[in-house]
Each structure stands twice: as structure tokens, then as C-alpha cells.
């Protein structure tokens, strides 16, 4: 009886030691994995008086990986003879719903030279038309019926972007750690770019200065 108890104790001790030895790497590794998943934040300001009226889009040019467009289509409305929203950042491959929510006929087209030249024709109240954007870049939106109407679809490679607020501030959260090119787009300002390094769980601060008018 005593001998069997000793044998059982020895076996249990042996298992505990084994478990400890094998679980040791896991215990050591766990903190580093969660840090990698925890992205960093890019925070900053676009220093230009133009951004108060014409918000800038700040985005990472390229991030490793595939970023499929959302299942729900982004929406661009024409209401009160105004495109809403004025700036619509989307992912490459996304299909945008264009709706006429007015009581007058509207058109949507993009001028030559845009990333995706298209013309949805002229259509009346309540009609929805769609366009898929497979090329990165700027797509100005115009209405041939109402020349003052203007908006922009900006086709991006990844979802790490933000629009500036009235003071030019922006914040991009949950960015995978790494080194990137951070870029700006603004309808009135020339594009600007600067390198940025994102560390896990950390906030990186950037400032875009010396912005010049297009």
C-alpha cells in the first residue's frame, strides 16, 4: 500500500515537472503574441488653415495583407442638391451605392483622369445605382445637372485612415506594428507623405507641415 502510494506520488510529481517544462515556453511566449495583436495608434495634425473647411484624409499607403471590401456597400447620397458625404474613403474593390434622395433628377459621373472614370447617367427620385471601384486613387464625383455639386471617393488599399477634424487633428487606431508611409489627401492641398513607425500598444505622433495648395 505504502509502496503503491510512493509510486503514485512519484508519477504525479513527474507529470507536474513535465507539465511545467512544456508549458514554460507558452508562459514566456504569451505576452509577446498579445502585444503583436495589440496595434498601435497614429495620432497627429495636418497643419494647414485649409483643413478647417476642407478636411484632409490621412491614410497608410500600403499595409501587408488582404483587406476585402465590406459586405455592406458604402453609400453616397444626393440630397438637397448636395453629395453626402463629401469625402467617402473606401477599400479597393468596394461597390458604392449612389442614391437620388431628392425630388429632382441627378447624375453622377467622374471626370477624365480620375482613378475610375464612370457615368451613371441621369436618374430620378428614389433610384439607386452602383459602381465598383477597382483602382486605387482619387475619384471626383460630379453631377452634370447641378455643376456646383461635388464629392470625392478615395479608393484605399487598407482600412487604416482618418479624416481630420476642424483643427486638423486625426487619429488612426489599431494599426499593425510596422514601418509605413503615411500620406495625406485633401481636395485643396497637394498630397504629402512621411514615414511612420508604429509600435505595439504605443502612440506615434506625426505632424504634416508646410502643406501647399494644389
Amino acid at each position, binding site marked *: 500500500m505504502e509502496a503503491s502510494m510512493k509510486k503514485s506520488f512519484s508519477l504525479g510529481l513527474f507529470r507536474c515537472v513535465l507539465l511545467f517544462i512544456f508549458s514554460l515556453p507558452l508562459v514566456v511566449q504569451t505576452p509577446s503574441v498579445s502585444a503583436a495583436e495589440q496595434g498601435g495608434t497614429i495620432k497627429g495634425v495636418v497643419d494647414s488653415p485649409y483643413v478647417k473647411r476642407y478636411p484632409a484624409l490621412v491614410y497608410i499607403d500600403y499595409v501587408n495583407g488582404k483587406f476585402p471590401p465590406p459586405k455592406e456597400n458604402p453609400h453616397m447620397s444626393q440630397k*438637397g442638391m448636395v453629395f453626402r458625404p463629401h469625402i467617402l474613403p473606401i477599400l479597393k474593390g468596394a461597390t458604392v451605392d449612389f442614391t437620388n434622395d431628392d425630388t*429632382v433628377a441627378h447624375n453622377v459621373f467622374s471626370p477624365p483622369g480620375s482613378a475610375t472614370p464612370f457615368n451613371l447617367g441621369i436618374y430620378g427620385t428614389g433610384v439607386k445605382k452602383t459602381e465598383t471601384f477597382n483602382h486605387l486613387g482619387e475619384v471626383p464625383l460630379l453631377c452634370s445637372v447641378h455643376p*456646383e455639386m461635388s464629392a470625392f471617393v478615395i479608393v484605399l488599399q487598407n482600412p487604416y485612415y482618418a479624416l481630420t477634424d476642424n483643427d486638423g487633428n486625426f487619429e488612426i487606431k489599431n494599426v499593425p506594428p510596422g514601418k509605413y508611409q503615411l500620406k495625406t489627401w485633401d481636395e485643396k492641398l497637394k498630397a504629402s507623405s512621411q514615414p511612420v513607425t508604429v509600435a505595439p500598444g504605443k502612440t506615434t505622433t506625426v505632424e504634416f507641415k508646410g502643406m501647399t495648395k494644389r
Partner: protein
Amino acid sequence: MNGKDGKMRRIWLGSIFSVVLSILFLAFFSGKANAIPAFARKYKTSCVLCHAPFPRLTAMGEAFRLNGYKLPQADEIYVKEQPVSMGAEAYKKVFPEAIWPSTIPGLPPLAVRIIGDANYHPFGHQTDRSEFNFPQEFTILSAGSFGENFAFFADVGFEKEDDSYSTNPKAWLMWQNLFSGLVGEHHFNLKAGNVGRHTIALPDTRNENSFTIEDYLYVTELDFDNEPGFQVDGYGRHWRYGVGVVETDTDNSDKDFYGTVAWKFGGLGYDGSGGKSEAGGVGTTPSGYWRDDSVLFGGFIYRSRVGINADPYDRIGGDARINYKDVSLAAGYIHGSNDQTKENKNIWFGETYYFVFPWMVPYLRYENLSVTNVGNKDQARFIVGSAMLLRANIRANVEARIYTKNEPREAAGGEKKDDDQIAFRLDWAF
């Protein structure tokens, strides 16, 4: 590349067409209207929503005008400059124990229009061959609505005549949608003031809706102008009418009467309904804002019991216009007869214009006046030129006026070419 080549070709062709037309006629040999930029501010929209090019109204501009300077169907959702309330909406339920609620424009809807001309007489016996008239006209305009059913218009214009400026203020107030429960919406509106501006004369070739420098011959030769009085008018999708009584002589209690009617098939309705649609697609470009494929017919009758120089007269006429893509063709005929002088005037004309670009519109008009019972009054002439929008609110015209018959001038000892003219106009409003 093909598209670019095509565009360049159109630019060259359009430019050559506009310039050469004027120069060609040089080798051989002024208009009134209203564009009211206060509305551009109110709706924060471009002039071209209603004008193509200004002051000529687009189909939407016509619907806007007829609707008492409100966008048809849902004006409120487009207004960016909110009006000031003259009483809450619910006061309608308190009436007649309260004043019927309305609104006034948030800011005074004032606009300024300035026209300047430079004229050159290339032929004939003219001693002063060139003249600069800057400004030829200076006009302060105001128009708008007081709530749902009242609209107003007013302008004070100063026009150069020789070396001085004359003024002729005009204003009217319109009560819309009277008896709408009985006769339907838009079918019965009452206007009081200087009426007839948009009613007397041919409906589809109205002088104030033209962008040529030179007035229509039928307007200058048949004595059409604004007069104080009352007008009842109305419109539906395809039709509109107007009848009025006006005074031409304040020392005489006799009045003049007129009526007009017009039909429109296709395009945007007079009430703003219908309108164009296009499929669009890859490699296509949307059509221009001016397009309104439609056919229009109109007619009017005017009976003056007082007349000019106590010579009562009758006027009757009709016109037609076809708008197809970038081209517009129109023709009109008017017969006028005077009771005392027994003078019979017959005027017919044809005209066309073509949108080479949204900002370049060459035009051509031929007019012919023949007068019976009174000699030496026949005239025939070409008006050819181009309107060019330097901006949506700045228009330049180059225009030639060439007489092929000019009996009044010849009878006075001159030549028919005396009245030939090359004119340049700058017209801008804000």
C-alpha cells in the same frame, strides 16, 4: 486619345465657327432679361440650374419661375439660406383669428446686373462708326417668395440713352394657387403690378428669354413692353396660359387685353415633373444641363383699345420650338394691324442655336418684316453671333447684325447698311 482629339476638334470648330461667322459678315457689311443671382445664394447652386446661358431659362428655370421663384415640388429641402418666419405654421389653424403665417427671405434677395456694349458700324454713312457704352444697363433686381403662395419681383434699371440714363422701375406681386381646391394646384394665379413681361409676346421666343444682344424685331416694331395691370395665369405638366388686362394710357380709362397659351411635349414639364433620364455607362459622358428634348408650341393675342398715339391695334402670333440634344430650332410669326393708320405688319423669323460647349453657344436668326398700306417700312436682317460664358455669371457676346432690306433707312436718305453693326457685349450679374 480619340476622345481628346474629338474635344480638341470641337474646340477648334466651335471657335472658328463663332469667330468666322462674325468676321465673314464684316466683309459684307441690344436685349433685356433677368438673371437673379440672389437665388444662387439662397439655394447655393449654380446659375446654370436655371439659365443656359443666362438670362435664357432652362426648363428647370421656367418651372422655377412659374412656381413663384420656388423649386417645384419640395422647395424647402433645397433652401440653404433659411427664411425668417412671419408666424408659425400652426397659425393656419387659428385663422381668421390670426394673420396667415408666411416667411420673408433671410437676407434681402438683391442682385445686380451690369451690361456693357462696344459697337462698330463697318459700312454705310455712319460718321460715328464706333461707340463704347459701359455700362449700357445697370439693374438692381429682387425677387422671391413670401411663404408658399406669394411671390414677388422688382427691378430698377438704368439704361443709357444717348448721354443720359433713363430708369423704368418694375414690380409685381403674385398670389398663387387661388381656388386650388376647385381648379387644382398651379392652375389659377393672380398677379398685380407690371405684368406681361413673361406673357405678352410669343411664349417660346420671348425677348427676355433670349441671350442675343439684339432684341427681336417683333418686340421693337410691335410695341411690346411691360404695363401696369392684372394677370391671371396657370400651368400644368404640358400647358400654360395667361390672360391679362393692362393700362397703356393713364389719361384714358380704356384698357388693353391679352391672352396667351402654350403647349409642351416631352422634356421637363412646366410643373417640374418628368424630365430626362439617361442610361450612362462606360466611356459615356453625361449630357449637358441645357438638354431638354421637347417640342413647344405657343400663341398669343393682344387687343389694344387705346394704342400708341390713339391708334388702337391688334397683335396675334404663334411660335414653335424644337429642342433636341444640343440644338434648338425655333420659328415665329406675328401679324399686327392698326385701326387708324390701317397699317398691317407681318413679321416672321427663324432662329437656331447650338451648344458647342456648355460655355459656347453660336446662334443665327433671320427676321423679316413686311408692311402693307404704309410704304417704306419693310426690313429683313440676319443676327449672327455667339454667346460665351466666361464664368457661369459672366457672359460675353460677339454679334453681327446685317440688313438685307432696310426701307426706313433708305427712305430717310441713307443706305440699308447704315444699320449694320458688329457688337461686343459683356453681361455680368452677382
